[in-house]
């Protein structure tokens, strides 16, 4: 590859990626690292969601099912087998395979449906996963959940940080390449006008299924990381709340941009963390959730296309006006 051809933005992202690996030497506290790991985990989860929402125009209310599949595969494996790195590798593979199969079936079953109906069907399926986890208590421990051991390396916060950061960076660049590939361009075309894409000779359903499988696998991987960082699993990994969270992160950051969901995830995690800490400052902030909700409203008002989307828009307008 000719280096001169690489887009400018790529260099910026590479630089930022390097910075990520410097952070844990500065922020050595485990609780800070935990917070940042959560941002990475949800950044990955949100990127996988954006692949559907932002690039292909599919609203899913059940994305959490893949996350949960990843989480439970990992937790159960670590619970049943010796917590070694081999188990970890196995967990990644198995969760990926299960998520892949589930998303393939779900995709084939649901992707023919239009907008709302698709969204509601995925909500239903995710709901069934939740009920399944609740009912299959021998395996999942139900809503009480269970804790499990980890290989010694992964118990170390620093190591987990590196693993998550590396995952985020690799997945980011991988997905970025995918969205900029001819394949990715077709996804956007599908978002814009499905029937026209079809009459140009693209098989829309194939694309949708492929993208939902990719998205499902990435989401399940974020579930794996999440559960490693939590070392405890219960049915809440299938809760609709998580889908809503990831939806918010994606939208706040800006749909149809990959960096957006990561920024959205950071913003939500940090806002959540700081605002809830505010409650100690003054009793007024005991109801910090009001502020939290207000942030969403303000974001829609001031950043109608999400933070990244709107900034990019402004940038283009500004450039257009200058020329």
């Amino acid at each position: 590859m000719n280096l001169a051809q690489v887009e400018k933005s790529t260099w910026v992202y590479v630089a930022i990626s390097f910075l990520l690996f410097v952070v844990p030497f500065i922020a050595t506290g485990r609780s800070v690292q935990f917070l940042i790991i959560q941002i990475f985990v949800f950044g990955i989860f949100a990127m996988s969601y954006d692949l559907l929402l932002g690039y292909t125009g599919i609203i899913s209310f059940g994305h959490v099912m893949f996350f949960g599949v990843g989480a439970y595969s990992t937790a159960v494996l670590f619970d049943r087998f010796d917590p070694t790195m081999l188990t970890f590798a196995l967990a990644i593979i198995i969760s990926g395979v299960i998520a892949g199969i589930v998303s393939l079936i779900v995709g084939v079953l649901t992707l023919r449906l239009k907008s709302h109906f698709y969204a509601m069907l995925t909500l239903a399926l995710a709901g069934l996963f939740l009920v399944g986890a609740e009912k299959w208590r021998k395996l999942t421990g139900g809503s009480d959940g269970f804790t499990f051991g980890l290989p010694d390396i992964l118990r170390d916060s620093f190591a987990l940080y590196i693993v998550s950061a590396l995952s985020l960076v690799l997945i980011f660049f991988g997905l970025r390449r995918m969205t900029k590939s001819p394949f990715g361009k077709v996804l956007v075309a599908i978002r814009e006008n499905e029937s026209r894409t079809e009459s140009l000779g693209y098989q829309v359903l194939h694309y949708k299924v492929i993208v939902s499988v990719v998205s499902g696998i990435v989401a399940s991987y974020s579930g794996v990381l999440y559960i490693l960082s939590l070392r405890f699993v219960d049915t809440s990994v299938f809760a609709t709340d998580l889908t809503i969270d990831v939806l918010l992160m994606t939208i706040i950051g800006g749909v149809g941009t990959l960096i957006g969901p990561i920024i959205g995830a950071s913003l939500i995690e940090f806002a959540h963390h700081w605002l809830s800490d505010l409650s100690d400052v003054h009793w007024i902030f005991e109801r910090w959730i009001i502020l939290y909700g207000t942030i969403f409203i303000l974001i829609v008002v001031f950043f109608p296309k999400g933070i990244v989307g709107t900034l990019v828009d402004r940038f283009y307008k500004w450039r257009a006006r200058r020329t």
Partner: protein
Amino acid sequence: GETEESGAEGGETIKIGVLASLTGALEAYGQQTKKGFELGLEYGTDGTMEVAGKKIEVVYEDTETDPKVARQKALTLLEDEGVDFLVGSSSSGDTLAVTPLAEEYEKVMVVEPAAADGITGAEYNDYVFRTSRNSSQDAVSAAAAIADEGVKIATLAPDYAFGRDGVSAFKTAAEDLGAEIIHEEYADQTATDFTANIQKILDADPDYLYVVWAGANTPWNQIVDMQVQEQGIKITTGVADRATLPMMAPLVGMEGFTLYYHTLPDNEVNDWLIEKHQEKHGEAPDLFTPGGMSAALAVIEALKQTEGSTDSAELIETMEGMEFATPKGTMTFRPEDHQALQEMYAVTLVESDEHDYPVPELKKVLTPEETAPPIMNGK
């Protein structure tokens, strides 16, 4: 976190981190725990906030009833605040997300008021002590309140871990006492209509209906509407916090049990609690207030015995088998699984002159021995 400092100038401090649901669905429980804990410290240290010459500092953190947040906050407490004890929390999930950290950081954690059996059962670790009762204790108390030779009982419970565990523990205990469980009914907790479930119970025609319920969407109205009692079936259940009492108005006369109602225990600590709570918060203590207090008292008692040492090994050794006075009488941490054995109360729901809701009236104090749950951590 929110810090309350007091006590001696200089000297060492002992830091306690309390995790509770201070917002969200379990907010009410979290607040009770917090108030109880504050009062517990005051009582235990005679208002000096000092034990064995060291001052006590408490940091409260809100888990928002979210395991992830719970873990995040616990890390903050352990790492940034450097607490010597953890206390909490309001939900079992939050608690289980934190107990491995207690082990990892080798800090004692006093669980209060999470009730899942697993905490001192399958998920047990040496650093965990529980002052709250577990689900099995509830079940055993319920059985003790009604079960007898030849009594036929049906159960109604929500269809998730809490309900299922509660019923299975109850079943064992009740059958030990000679009763027969003739029907188990599980309902979707979020459903609005329980009449089909109640219909099946009516069909089974038991002597008693034992209801395990938690959460807001209650079946009481419908049990009354379906005229269950009129058809000769007696209802029994655990009496929960005050906010739920008005809902039980139609069940006056019911025999059940409770883990606490402020008029029930007759001891000094409880008297002090009632008085102080009234003074400070303008009302009587509620269901989980004495629990919060007990947790504080357990910590203080342990520190007294170790003379202020926060060495975990020493603390664990001290606390295993430790007896301490609480608003619910003397509790004992069972050495095998660190579950506090405690009084429970068999009650009858009666109308009250003071309140426009019914209140539990003491029928019998169920002793710690009577309500001891099975040991479930494989020891």
